[in-house]
């Protein structure tokens, strides 16, 4: 017997045994994925949908031929559970596992690579069937692959990879469609702070405008990643919660961490940019500009950014405009960029502020506000020389601008301070070197 045949018969035995005693774990009950636990898990908790899971696995075709193994790569395989990133059998199978568990999964092609196969390693349906029918009486008619999986670890999904919003899904929504910015959503939410519930309501609002209903920006952001019918728990950091100011209405102090349970009952999407014609875009631009300004005045900069951002996304790449339209479009864009710059200044995102000013100045190179704001941003980024240039240009455009004048002297003062500090540092350094050399 050759080694190849040996592995083949091993696969045969395993597949046969699994087909006999494996538990059907498909929701449809069609025996598409059968599971046998080889080693029970150490903890009782199973991963939730959307969790980042770490597994080791080995995959074999029905003929016993190994097609893949994470051990060969010396590192665990990481994926988001239940998101269609992996073959269906995995999304179903791993969700049933406990931490530390090892199990076998026997999968039909519908739950694995389907009729298309996956070149070059996984043959198409037909080939598999052929191989499988040779694999023995019990497995006849099975076109399956066999997976041994060990669940190493899992953790909640970090929605923006900054630790600010962690989501754990309790019930998966339907399909893959998410509300977009500007979509109208109907949700049920419960907010918890330090273990007590401070808010519980059913509410309908426009994504990006949750603030109007005392809903923090993190919920708006998370909704864009939720699906219809989804029920999840969201852990919000202060930046995505009520921020430094807190929310006196709910008795929430500044920099509080919040927990929300949210169910997205239904939503209606806002139109995509390509679905709107120019006229519609210009009409809408006027509306969202108003809204943005309202938020800005209330100090809700993140919300304002969303509104102004819409104008940019609608109009920045629009071409083929009539002269009149193009004038209107440019003036909306200019206002949007200038206001965005202001928001980013307030949010202390100076690089973005500079970017917006650059774009505004691209439309109108002598724009006083654009130059002034870029100067401010650069000053705060410690780019004193560049900042000074900007303020000087402001004065060229408008010699009466007193603020710019005083900013120039600030720049000069800062440059001087900076130079002196450098000098002190280097002086110390050289003194030390000299000392060391002397020794």
């Amino acid at each position, binding site marked *: 017997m050759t080694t190849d045949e040996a592995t083949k018969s091993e696969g045969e035995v395993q597949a046969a045994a699994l087909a006999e005693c494996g538990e059907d774990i498909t929701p449809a009950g069609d025996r598409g994925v059968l599971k046998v636990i080889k080693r029970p898990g150490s903890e009782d908790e199973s991963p939730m949908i959307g969790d980042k899971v770490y597994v080791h696995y080995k995959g074999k075709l029905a003929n016993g031929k190994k097609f893949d193994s994470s051990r060969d790569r010396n590192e665990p395989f990481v994926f988001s559970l239940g998101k269609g990133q992996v073959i269906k059998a995995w999304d179903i199978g791993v969700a049933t596992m406990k931490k530390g568990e090892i199990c076998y999964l026997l999968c039909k092609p519908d739950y694995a*690579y389907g009729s298309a196969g996956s070149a070059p390693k996984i043959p198409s349906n037909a080939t598999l069937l052929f191989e499988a029918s040779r694999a023995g009486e019990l497995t006849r008619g099975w076109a399956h692959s066999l997976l041994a999986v060990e669940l190493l670890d899992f953790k909640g999904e970090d929605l923006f990879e900054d630790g600010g919003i962690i989501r754990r899904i309790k019930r998966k929504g339907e399909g893959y*469609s998410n509300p977009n910015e500007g979509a109208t959503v109907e949700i049920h939410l419960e907010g918890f702070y330090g273990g007590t519930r401070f808010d519980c309501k059913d509410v309908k609002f426009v994504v990006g405008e949750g603030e109007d209903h005392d809903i923090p920006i993190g919920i708006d952001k998370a909704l864009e990643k939720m699906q219809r019918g989804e029920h999840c728990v969201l852990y919000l950091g202060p930046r995505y919660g009520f921020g430094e100011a807190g929310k006196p209405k709910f008795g929430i102090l500044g920099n509080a961490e919040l927990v929300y349970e949210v169910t997205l009952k239904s939503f209606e999407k806002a139109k995509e940019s390509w679905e709107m014609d120019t006229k519609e875009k210009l009409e809408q631009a006027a509306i969202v500009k108003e809204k943005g300004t309202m938020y800005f005045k209330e100090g809700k900069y993140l919300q304002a950014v969303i509104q102004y951002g819409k104008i940019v996304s609608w109009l920045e790449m629009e071409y083929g405009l009539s002269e009149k339209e193009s004038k209107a479009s440019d003036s909306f864009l200019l206002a949007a960029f200038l206001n965005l710059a202001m928001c980013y200044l307030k949010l202390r995102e100076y690089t973005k502020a500079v970017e917006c000013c650059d774009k505004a100045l691209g439309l109108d190179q002598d724009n006083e506000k654009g130059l002034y704001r870029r100067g401010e941003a650069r000053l705060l980024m410690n780019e004193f020389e560049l900042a000074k240039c900007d303020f000087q240009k402001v004065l060229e455009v408008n010699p009466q601008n007193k603020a710019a004048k005083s900013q120039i002297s600030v720049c000069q003062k800062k440059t001087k301070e900076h130079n002196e500090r450098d000098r002190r540092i280097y002086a110390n350094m050289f003194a030390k070197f000299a000392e060391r050399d002397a020794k």
Partner: protein
Amino acid sequence: MAVEELRAIIQRCQILEEADFKGEDFNLFQVAGQKCLEDGYAAELLEVIQNEKNKVIIKNMGWNLLSPLVRCIFMYKQEDDKREHCLKILDQLAQLCYPKELFLGLLEEIEQTTQEQVCQTVMLLLQPLQTVLLKLQNKKAYSVGFSLAMIMNQLTPLPVPYTKQQIQEDKLGLCQCCNALVDFAKPFVNEVVENMEMSLEDNEMELKEELLKFCMKSLKYPLLTAQLEQLEGIEEHPFRHFATEIVDVLWAVRELIPLMFLRHKGKTPHWENQEFADIERKDSADSLACLSYLMFVQHFGIDCFPMVFSPSYLLQCNMAHIEVLLKRTEESVLSKGLDLFESCLLRMEDNSLLHHYLEFRDYINVPQDLVKVMTLCPIEHLRKKSLSILQLFIDKFDAEGKYTLFRCLLKTSNHAGVEGYIIKNIKDQIHLSLTKACDNIWFTGHHLISLLDLALLLPEGAETDLLQNSDRIMASLNLLRYLVIKDCESDNHTGVWTTLDKIKQNFLKPLHVGLNMSKAHYEAEIKNKKQNRRESHSSNTVCSVTVSGEKMPAMTTEMQLQVLHSALFTFDLIESVLARVEELIEVKIKAATDENS
């Protein structure tokens, strides 16, 4: 005599201590050595260098000979003994000289060479360069990175051989040079790999980063623009070999999988200057797209790739790469984009792609890019291929996805041929919905009506250029004819009877007007032309046509008449189908009213 002069200097220096060598000595040594080489005394020079007594002198001064040495080597013929001696001298210098000076000397040679000689020079000096780098104690990682970057920069302006003949000929030696470069890098790769098991120290981390940069650079040039298909008659395809090696290096330093799946999530190194960050992002976008192509189309390194990803997720990961490639115009790059797109789609089953994916911007952008390729690209086989891929893409979507895609393409393609093609697709989908038992809400009833509104109209009313839009108009008429025949007013599955008034208003009526106007116009034109021909036999042409910079031969009146007639023929064709459709509508309506009365 040059040799004697050299011996004299050497003798004088032999008694000196290393620290006592003066600038003057260096000069004299260089001049004399150079003279030896120029006068053909390479063998004698070799002897001097190999002399144990002269070790210290060569260690200090030898690097000065590099430049004349390289010149001589290129001067002598391949089989010349003198060339052999020169090569031995080069080898000796690499062994004996202080590495730091020689390192700089070698790079200087590579930097100063001409474009024609760059590959030859690089291949000549790689071996000594490697020897020297392996001897360097400090800043090794930096020096390796610097060498690789410098060499790549020197190579980048060279044209990449593309056809089989060009590759075989390898006129400038680029193919050979690239593979030599990988061999050059291997000891450094091994060094990183050997230390991999333990956590890497700063030095090794730096070395790994440098090697990574080299791989990324190689993916962008020459691999992105190189021909990577297997070629008949070439056993060892140099670029395929090079590509395999690069992928192997990435795999060995464990960066392959992270590159494929993590980078595109926005893990970009932080640059203080926004411009640098942008350049880097753009650069790496090209490289990563090429890497994806190598993996999914050419299957390089696929053995290391996890096989448990779902096909739709793989498509999603590749969409950004495909978009990058399709935005380009070079045949080599465009065809890579099309191949990558095709291979991703072939993994999927028909109707399996959920419409929600269209919410990703790429899924809307890429088909639009595809339309651009099929309408604007001058290379025929790419145009054809992009059309077949568009069809493949359409086929993979579920009904709602197809529906959305059709809407989007009708609105954005701006090309009558493509619009006609989409309208034909709509017809096929309606046919499937009507004939299959499964009820399909997207291609019947009210959803369909709003799609029909887009499909059954003249883009600019009666003023539409019918000739330009004839493909679209014929497809629309065919669709309408199909609907009227298949669907009775009493059933009205498709809803066409509900929206018939609108169709008449937006499509049929203006089409009548347009046809009348166009026919009158063209007939007048023909009459005009004929009159002119009778009046003056000298055919003075009014307009000239240029196609891609070349002036087309002027059209004779005869040819112009032919064109005009064929236009009239097209109008007749449209008119006859239009008449048939209207006839059918009337018959059906009459039948329905008869039944009711």
